[in-house]
């Protein structure tokens, strides 16, 4: 394994060499979205410059090229998450759409009055609201696994919660607000023993840990391209073929049909059944470029380097007086959510922005979690493999400076 050269990696990301408010950009909002390497930007330019065309319908050469590229992207995703078949990879807009698809399609067929769906306190709104909407439609109930003070799921409570009424479990692999890595293998194995399908919200996981859906044995897995250095507006729903095959289509339109008459429509096969309308062809190609880029560096090396940043960042943060790290799980991804003394996250975020440091402030689309923790929100610094310890030093110095202004 060659040496991990962060300076070389930084050369691949043009935006990291820009300035914000007259200061060199320090980008610590990677949990919201990641920056794009030249390989991804070039793939998009190349697609639009050379092969832009609609897929699956033209007999002309360009359409064939675009179709081949689109389907090759599907295979790249399949390989990246180690799915059994390419047909199990559905291209969607992002994690939210993937969860909505499952909640609507699987939910419509299988979820009934008084059934129970289990999520956790850590969920992003995207993994709460679609299930709430399903519950409203069907009369099913949403059960929420509690967490402890460190921001970890209380597994014993989950064990107690699971019953004959439990018909679906949807859990974040990694918490976007706190960085907690959930014990998804244990959750899945318990669910498996009771024959309950499990969906993993992988939006915060796919860029940090090796995903092998066969090894995980999850029934559904969702992630967004833009959080793994790919374009926005493209994401993936993985589903086991046996589930996807028997699920009704989610949206109707072109490409998802076999035959249409005004009396009756028959639907296309997987994966097209779930891909109504012209898909995000460029996005899929950009995503494949991003996955290849990550693969070239190696997700294990990325994880190891990011873990180093997390450890260093946590230590440096704790040196700041009045610092309170929110989310202190034993297993954590490179996310540090925090509150500093009595300062309001908005104030701290505003001043850090003036220093060229991009962090996220607020409730991070996890309002129920913030209510549970009884805090108005946090400041969140989330690290990617192109960040450095020097940047963390600038962040912690910036925080100290901001605190001295605010208190």
């Amino acid at each position: 394994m060659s040496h991990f050269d962060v300076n070389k990696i930084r050369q691949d990301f043009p935006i990291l060499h820009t300035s914000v408010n007259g200061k060199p950009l320090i980008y610590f909002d990677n949990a919201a979205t990641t920056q794009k390497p030249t390989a991804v930007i070039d793939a998009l330019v190349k697609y639009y410059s050379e092969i832009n065309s609609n897929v699956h319908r033209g007999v002309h050469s360009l359409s064939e090229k675009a179709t081949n590229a689109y389907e090759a992207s599907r295979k790249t995703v399949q390989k990246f998450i180690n799915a059994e078949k390419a047909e199990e990879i559905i291209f969607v807009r992002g994690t939210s759409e993937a969860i909505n698809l499952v909640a609507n399609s699987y939910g419509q067929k299988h979820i009934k009055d008084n059934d129970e769906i289990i999520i956790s306190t850590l969920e992003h709104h995207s993994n709460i609201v679609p299930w709430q909407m399903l519950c409203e439609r069907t009369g099913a109930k949403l059960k929420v696994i509690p967490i402890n003070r460190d921001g970890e799921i209380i597994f014993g409570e989950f064990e107690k919660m699971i019953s004959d009424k439990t018909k679906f479990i949807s859990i974040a692999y990694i918490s976007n607000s706190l960085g907690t890595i959930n014990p998804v293998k244990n959750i899945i194995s318990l669910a498996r023993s009771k024959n309950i399908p499990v969906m993993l919200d992988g939006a915060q996981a796919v860029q940090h840990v090796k995903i092998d859906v066969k090894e995980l044995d999850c029934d559904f897995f969702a992630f967004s391209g833009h959080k793994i250095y790919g374009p926005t507006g493209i994401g993936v729903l993985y589903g086991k073929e046996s589930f996807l095959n028997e699920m009704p289509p989610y949206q109707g339109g072109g490409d998802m049909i076999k035959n249409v008459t005004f009396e009756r429509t028959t639907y296309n096969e997987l994966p097209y059944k779930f891909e109504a309308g012209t898909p995000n062809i460029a996005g899929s190609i950009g995503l494949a470029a991003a996955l290849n880029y990550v693969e070239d560096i190696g997700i294990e090396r990325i994880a190891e380097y990011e873990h180093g940043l997390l450890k260093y960042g946590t230590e440096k943060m704790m040196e700041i007086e009045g610092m309170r790290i929110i989310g202190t799980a034993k297993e954590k991804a490179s996310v540090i959510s925090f509150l500093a003394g009595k300062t309001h996250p908005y104030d701290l975020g505003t001043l850090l922005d003036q220093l060229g440091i991009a962090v996220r402030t607020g409730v991070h689309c996890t309002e129920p979690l913030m209510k549970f923790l009884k805090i108005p929100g946090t400041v969140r610094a989330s690290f990617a493999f192109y960040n450095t310890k020097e940047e963390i030093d600038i962040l912690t110095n910036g925080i100290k400076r901001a605190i001295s202004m605010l208190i």
Partner: protein
Amino acid sequence: MNKSIEEIEDEIVEEFSLFDEWMDKYEYIIELGKNLPSMDENLKTEDRKVSGCQSQVWLNTKSENGKVLFEADSDAIITKGLVGLLVRVLSGQRPEDVINAKLGFIDKIGMKEHLSPNRANGLVAMIKHMKLNASSLINKN
């Protein structure tokens, strides 16, 4: 006679022109936020809250001798400083003038970014509420 909205706006722009550095500007706003009297906790009711999910703002409106009187508060100190500036400009003015106020000073002092809906700090909603409350006073009279 009371100063007009434009006159107060000009005053503020002049005060801020003394600062070259962003830090001095923000220090001044933070100072204003710290000095703005906090609103009575009993007045911080749901109906006085103009919400933004990042910081919260409370606005109380009264009328006196045909003028609108505002008092406001926020849980974030920078927002509170900006809220204080808005109160300074608009409180004690005629409802018609409040409704028509352009509030160009926010841009001129380099604080326009705080009016971006993206900030969700309650400031934009607060200006809207100030104007709405002023227009409902006109309708009452």
